[in-house]
């Protein structure tokens, strides 16, 4: 294994035993004496490697196995089988030594102490991670300044807004200067301002400290803003691993051109213009505006050439399919067995 691999996952698998509840009173009585279980495989032999300093997005639908993977990578869950090395440690075996080198933020769970002031939580974490006082001061000042937390430090966590809490969670996860940061849906439920702020902050952390970041998210803008690489998971398997641009070209089926004409246009008239171009579709937005959908196979210039002969065109806009749509598309196609 090369030294600069931060996360090395090899045929990782996690199976859960889920208790089956039998129906009705008779079933409940049977359950009392003999339980039946079904095995559910949440993660099915996935493999990937993440080099140091990379920001990698880990996406997939609810229940695809993202959180289970993160929990194995952070040593919370013990894998059923497969190899796993994070920072050179086997997470669940050398837990205490291992967790000192990582930071974790769960968007849906707070790791701060609910009833005490934020600063008290930080100080407790300083002791938990045995961070030297001077280093702690320096780091705290830097983080507090960057995330604008100075006013919040003495408030109890339960009185913070979600956005404020999330920024504090980030500080809590980074106080001991971890080399890998795991983020499980860090921007869930946040407004756009806080989201942007957090993205900016993560990018800076990555550039200045070389922190490796693995994040799961449902917000693809997180991915677009941050990630050089995307791993897409579906039903416990990796269905895509690569960069975002490739994902778009590979899965995107087409794009749209919007024309605004000077005079009123009718659908048959427009369809006639592009007759012969395979798979194109027109849609009228209003009397003078129409949208032309082009599959990847058709050149934008070919289509334009056909339409501009109309002459009176006020405006043209080209829309690329956005990542959200692509991903939705992928999820839907993966659902139907091919």
């Amino acid at each position, binding site marked *: 294994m090369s030294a600069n691999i931060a996360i090395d996952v090899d045929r990782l698998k996690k199976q859960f035993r889920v208790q089956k509840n039998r129906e009705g009173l008779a079933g409940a009585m049977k359950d009392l004496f003999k339980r039946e279980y079904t095995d559910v495989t949440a993660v099915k032999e996935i493999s990937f490697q993440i080099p140091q300093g990379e920001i990698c997005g880990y996406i997939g639908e609810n*229940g695809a196995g993202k959180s289970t993977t993160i929990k194995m990578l*952070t040593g919370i*869950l*013990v894998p059923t089988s497969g190899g796993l090395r994070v920072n050179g440690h086997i997470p*669940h075996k050398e837990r205490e*030594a291992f967790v000192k080198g990582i930071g974790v933020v769960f968007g849906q769970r707070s790791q701060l102490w609910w009833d005490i002031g934020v600063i008290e939580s930080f100080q407790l974490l300083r002791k938990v991670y045995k961070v030297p006082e001077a280093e702690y001061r320096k780091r705290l000042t830097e983080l507090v300044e960057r995330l604008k937390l100075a006013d919040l430090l003495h408030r109890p966590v339960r009185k913070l807004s979600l956005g404020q809490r999330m920024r504090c969670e980030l500080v809590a996860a980074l106080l001991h200067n971890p080399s890998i940061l795991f983020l499980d849906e860090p921007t869930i439920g946040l407004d756009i301002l806080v989201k942007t702020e957090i993205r900016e902050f993560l990018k800076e952390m990555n550039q200045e400290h070389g922190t490796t970041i693995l994040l799961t998210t449902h917000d693809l803008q997180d991915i677009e803003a941050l990630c050089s690489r995307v791993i897409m998971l579906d039903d416990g398997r990796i269905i895509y691993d690569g960069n975002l641009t490739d994902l778009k070209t590979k899965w995107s089926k087409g794009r749209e051109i919007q024309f605004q004409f000077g005079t009123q246009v009718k659908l048959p008239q427009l369809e006639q213009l592009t007759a012969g171009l395979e798979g194109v579709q027109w849609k009228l937005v209003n009397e003078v505006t129409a949208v032309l959908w082009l599959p990847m196979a058709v050149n934008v210039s070919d289509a334009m050439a056909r339409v501009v002969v109309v002459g009176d065109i006020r405006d043209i806009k080209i829309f690329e399919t956005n990542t959200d749509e692509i991903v939705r598309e992928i999820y839907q196609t993966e659902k139907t067995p091919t």
Partner: protein
Amino acid sequence: MNPAYVDIIRIRFLMMLAYRVNYYSGIIIYAINIGAYYFLWQAIYGNQEVLGGFTINQMTTYIAVSWMARAFYFNNLDREIADEIRDGSVAIQFIRPYNYLMVKLMQGLGEGLFRLLLFMVPGMVVVCLIFPVTLPTDPTVWGWYLVMLFFSFLINTQINMLTGLFAFFVENNTGLIRMKRVLVDLFSGVIIPMSFFPGWLEGIMKWLPFQAITYLPSSVFTGRTPISEAGAVFGLQVLWCVLLAVPILAVWRAARTRLFVQGG
């Protein structure tokens, strides 16, 4: 040992201070309990001098001391652990470089110390003024008792942890927690001293850890068990402490591999 553990005690102490209403209502509840049992035993004794090896005075002292001790060793760690397992927040505890059970123990200690200082000590003064309680004058008895009280706390906390950790294996262990609470109160001797149980039950009790929580230390304190036997009582407490650690560690190990974090 991680210096953070001391801080965890401190923080729990501060948190207890923050919830003052609980504190005041606790005082009232304990006062009522001690009063009720005092009058109950008065009625039971009637004209009799000695019952179950206790004189009425020893009994009054036993009740007051046992309830006050309960204030120190009692905690809700069973429920706290079960809740954290059920709602999945136990996962957060695994990403920190400390031992979860140790943290819980320290939280319990913080709570216990709070009650010892702000509840037991003033409470005992009040109780001594109202009821005919005779406290021992021998400092060795006091010394032994304080050490034993700490071990009462340890044993009770261990039983709580074991009960709480069962949440890893059963979906809902509220029933188990309730049952345990009744068992501990009844069999530890807070409600009735062991010597009042029928012979066979008393025999069984000797083989269970509960008596080491209240009955044995309180008997030493009230002078029913001579101080010369205090060493043996203490030895029994230590033995239970060690014995109980075994299943806790076993359950903890097993739980690690089958930890199912609920809610995704």
